[in-house]
């Protein structure tokens, strides 16, 4: 159950829409079933009152939608942001992906979201923050950054031998059907032209010809968002094959924390990401395994 009610959201959105502050509302649209929620735009008050949904199934992160939507309007776009969404919001601002003046962000508290089966999402079990890092106004109470066990699974994987790790990832990644949902939903994947969309590359379509291609796809994608991934967990949420993609991103995050100091992407606007930065005395690539399991 969410502490903030649907009515509170609708009341605020309706008043902002009616007085002309915004002309578009980004929200969760009701579907056929409870869990069947679609990210959508609302232009009219009637549509909002009738079709906006706000409950435990509203996992979608709207930050990325702002890029397209703010370009389409001369007015402002109202967007509802849960605490973890605000990190993506900040990260996109850092990368100058949309005009801050054209976004009206309402922060709403979140008590955890569930998947279609009603189980709490992994990212919510290991929630990293209940604190909004960006908003124009807030409905409800703001929370705190939390201590979470989100790196526990990464540590467990690291403790295995190389062969066991390889088997684990083969089992997981061979399930991939290359639907590209993880890429399409990722707020850090905002290139106008994606490297995987090159028709000449031979890796554009689905129907994997070999499992190795899948591996490369996910390594490349994880690396492209390294240092910019806010760990919003959208990739794992949308994966139809339930591949734990967040474990790849969290590996990069935990490495960055270990090698270059604690860093949370999106915590502030204008932060310099670790991979576009450098310092004297950075760890050498041949030193990273020191102290690790050298026999693995």
């Amino acid at each position, binding site marked *: 159950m969410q502490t903030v009610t649907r009515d509170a959201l609708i009341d605020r959105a309706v008043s902002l829409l009616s007085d002309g502050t915004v002309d578009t509302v980004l929200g969760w649209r009701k579907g056929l079933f409870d869990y069947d929620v679609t990210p959508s735009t609302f232009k009219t008050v009637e549509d909002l009152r009738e079709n906006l949904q706000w409950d435990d199934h509203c996992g979608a992160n709207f930050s990325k939608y702002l890029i397209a939507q703010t370009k389409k309007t001369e007015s402002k776009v109202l967007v509802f942001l849960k605490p973890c969404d605000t990190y993506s919001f900040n990260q996109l601002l850092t990368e100058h992906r949309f005009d801050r003046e054209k976004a009206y962000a309402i922060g709403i508290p979140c008590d955890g979201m569930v998947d279609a089966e009603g189980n709490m999402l992994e990212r919510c079990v290991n929630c990293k923050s209940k604190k909004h890092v960006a908003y124009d106004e807030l409905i409800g109470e703001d929370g705190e950054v939390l201590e979470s066990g989100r790196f526990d699974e990464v540590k467990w994987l690291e403790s295995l031998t190389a062969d066991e790790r390889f088997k684990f990832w083969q089992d997981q990644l061979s399930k991939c059907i290359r639907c590209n949902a993880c890429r399409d939903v990722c707020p850090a994947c905002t290139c106008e032209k994606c490297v995987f969309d090159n028709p000449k590359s031979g890796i554009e379509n689905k129907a994997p010809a070999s499992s190795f291609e899948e591996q490369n796809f996910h390594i490349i994608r994880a690396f492209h968002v390294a240092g910019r991934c806010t760990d919003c967990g959208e990739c794992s949420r949308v994966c139809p094959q339930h591949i734990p993609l967040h474990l790849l991103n969290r590996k990069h995050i935990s490495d960055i924390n270990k090698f270059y100091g604690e860093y949370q992407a999106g915590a502030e606007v204008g932060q310099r990401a670790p991979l576009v930065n*450098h310092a004297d005395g950075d760890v050498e690539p041949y030193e990273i395994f020191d102290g690790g399991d050298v026999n693995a």
Partner: protein
Amino acid sequence: MQVEGYKPLIVAFCCNWCSYAGADLAGNNRLAYPADVKIIRVPCSCRVNPMFVLRAFQRGADGVILCGCHPGDCHYTSGNFYTRRRMAMLFSMLDYLGIERERTRVEWVSAAEGAKFAATMNDFAQTVAKLGENKRLEDLRCKQ
């Protein structure tokens, strides 16, 4: 698994200003290093996109080594600092996915270090030869 007469295929990305000149010096001094080391000249070690490394593995390389100027000596002032961070992250990720960590390496070789270049290549070729063929990241479609 080691096959009789097996020679590893090694791709070496060498920066134009230091390591490529280092390789040249090794040649001038008639220092032997394995002929299976294929050198690709890049303007700077930071030109090497992590995808290049994966591509090399996909196309059948058994080991990939990056050579650049010593940190602080980069022709473009800071290129190899970025390489250092990038490759540390990439190698750590490859290890996490279960790819043998000995297959990748970064080595700083200056233009005056012909001997170091030859020694590095000999050592790396030996290490990779012990591991045998790269089975974990190869792409069967690329096999000839």
